[in-house]
């Protein structure tokens, strides 16, 4: 065919004839491709695609419906957070990191703060109540994150109802976050030295009620999906990646645990006092999408168990401090919600504005300049919903990080897309990517 087709122009390259599809008349394109000997088709999927889990671009080489090569294109959500943090104080850093993996903000904040505290050498001075609050918030966050993973994962495979139930549960958790921190996402709640403020009045009974409600609600999704024959056909044996593949690719989190290895940093290298909580590490031995789905499903219950234990601890620690005693590090964050809706503590304002010049200077210097952190580098890792989230921070002794790098599990795990999906059907890529549960905000940072 030699006539020019405006909808499917072709050009000859060293790789062979390349057809660009711009929409419109598919008949002529199909006809023309059918006349060539080679049946290799390269399809660009995303970055704007409803089932690629965010702005992820997949470049797929197909033979019929079989994927022969799959490559990811990322970087569409790159925001330069790591660079920006080098120009902001250590406390302001939490405001940045919380925006990376936007489904697990509290994990980002905690990993960052644990690293800063390690650099400061105050790891053991962080008050117990602050640590318990961190654990409780992280586990609630794990539930909300897994709920998005399950809900959108099911939605992308064509099951709509699980998404409704999953987002209903996520809403419960986000309401709790709003009550405690004032924000539903990106809350910058965990700060170096502790947490920004204590739980509000009456929070513990409300969280207990929410835990009870969620435990009852989880059954809805369980009955919908576990053992559902359509769901199992779409997920069993799909996205296979065994232990050797996981270790060489550096894969952690539910994908690693789906190979049967009970590797969970909360148990293996406990931080934030996780050794004092009773919970199980959930594994599967099927190395496939279904196994990862079951792991996330069952981790919900384990997170609820940890939340309950944290609440018991918090009841005993009523009135204890939530920030380190060192006033050279702790922000003057004695906030109280006033009648005007602003978060200032009138007592604190009276002190710095009316009675003590030194307090004012102290407040001003700490808030504008910030505290200094001794020279050195540390790596602090925690178990985020997606795997090992590591914060590598270098300080030169100044008031802001010299270099801050996050080892994002989403970024790393997304590399497994090729191994999981090449040789399979194009429809199964969706399930494989969804089982990795990449959050593009974390991938690109």
């Amino acid at each position, binding site marked *: 065919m030699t006539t020019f087709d405006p909808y499917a122009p072709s050009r000859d390259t060293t790789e062979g004839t390349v057809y660009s599809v711009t929409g419109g008349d598919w008949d002529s394109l199909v006809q023309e491709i059918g006349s060539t000997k080679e049946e290799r088709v390269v399809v660009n999927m995303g970055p704007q695609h409803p089932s690629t889990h965010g702005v992820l671009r997949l470049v797929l080489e197909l033979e019929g419906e079989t994927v022969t090569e799959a490559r990811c294109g990322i970087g569409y959500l790159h925001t*330069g957070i790591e660079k920006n943090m080098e120009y902001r104080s250590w406390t302001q850093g939490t405001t940045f990191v919380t925006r990376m993996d936007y489904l697990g903000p509290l994990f980002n904040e905690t990993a960052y703060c644990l690293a800063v505290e390690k650099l400061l050498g105050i790891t053991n001075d962080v008050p117990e109540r602050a640590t318990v609050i961190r654990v409780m918030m992280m586990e609630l966050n794990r539930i909300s994150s897994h709920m998005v993973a399950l809900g959108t994962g099911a939605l992308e495979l064509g099951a709509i109802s699980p998404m409704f139930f999953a987002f209903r549960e996520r809403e419960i958790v986000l309401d709790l976050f709003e009550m405690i921190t004032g924000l539903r996402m990106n809350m910058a709640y965990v700060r170096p030295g502790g947490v920004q403020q204590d739980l509000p009045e009456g929070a513990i009974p409300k969280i207990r009620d929410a835990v009870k409600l969620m435990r009852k609600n989880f059954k809805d999704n369980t009955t919908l999906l576990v053992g559902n024959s359509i769901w199992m056909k779409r997920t069993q044996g799909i996205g296979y990646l065994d232990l050797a593949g996981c270790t*060489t690719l550096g894969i952690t989190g539910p994908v690693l645990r789906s190979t049967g290895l009970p590797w969970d940093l909360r148990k293996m290298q406990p931080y934030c006092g996780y050794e004092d909580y009773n919970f199980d590490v959930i594994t599967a031995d099927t190395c496939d999408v279904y196994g990862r789905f079951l792991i996330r499903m069952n981790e919900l219950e384990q997170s609820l168990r940890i939340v309950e234990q944290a609440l018991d601890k918090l009841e005993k620690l009523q009135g204890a401090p939530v920030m380190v005693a060192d006033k050279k590090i702790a922000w003057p964050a004695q906030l109280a919600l006033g009648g005007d809706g602003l978060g200032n503590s009138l007592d604190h304002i009276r002190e710095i504005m009316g009675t003590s010049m030194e307090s004012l200077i102290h407040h001003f*210097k700490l808030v504008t300049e910030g505290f200094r952190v*001794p020279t050195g*580098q540390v790596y602090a890792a925690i178990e985020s919903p997606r795997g090992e989230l590591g914060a*590598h921070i270098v300080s030169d002794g100044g008031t802001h990080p010299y270099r801050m790098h996050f080892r994002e599990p989403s970024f790393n795990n997304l590399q497994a897309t090729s191994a999981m999906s090449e040789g399979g059907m194009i429809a199964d890529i969706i399930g494989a990517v969804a089982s990795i549960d990449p959050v593009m905000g974390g991938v690109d940072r």
Partner: protein
Amino acid sequence: MFGARGTGDTSGYGGLVRTAASTGSSERPYGSYFDEVADDLERAYPLFSEAIERVVVDRGELTLHVKREKLVEVSMILRDTLKFEMCMGVSGIHYPTDAGRELHAVYPLLSLTNNRRVRLEVSVPDADAHIPSVVEVWAGNNWHERETFDMFGIIFDGHPGLTRILMPDDWQGHPQRKDYALGGIPVEYKGATTPPPNERRSYK
């Protein structure tokens, strides 16, 4: 600012600066499992003293400073003999004032078998920013090395496809180097030009 000389620090906050972590080697015993790791590596790798420039233990973490020529060899032994099966990526650091060793690459390793961590650090001069790739040792470092190349301009020799990963393919410069301004390009709007943020003010 406001005519203050010196650091301008009148608050006493300067007093918080504690002695910087020693840049020299740490002395034995290193403590924890670090002695065992060092011993095992010495036993398995006869060129230990030649390849490992320094051993630093700081804040409960072990860092081995490796010469770049020996990086792949040391990595192989750490993976196969010492069972550090996983590499958690690579993170670049740019020290423009550290003459001859301006660019550092840091590799956090993890052993699933022994539940241990160790860190490798390689430093190279800016003028010759080449480090051998460890993708053949830990395939998962592929994207991490691409990111470090993208952000710092370190060239990982032997990488299967070293291209930019986060920035656009035709981007000029490597954004996380210290000589690259924050914001990078001046923002132009209706004739006025706003300089990059770090040239507007400094907290230091």
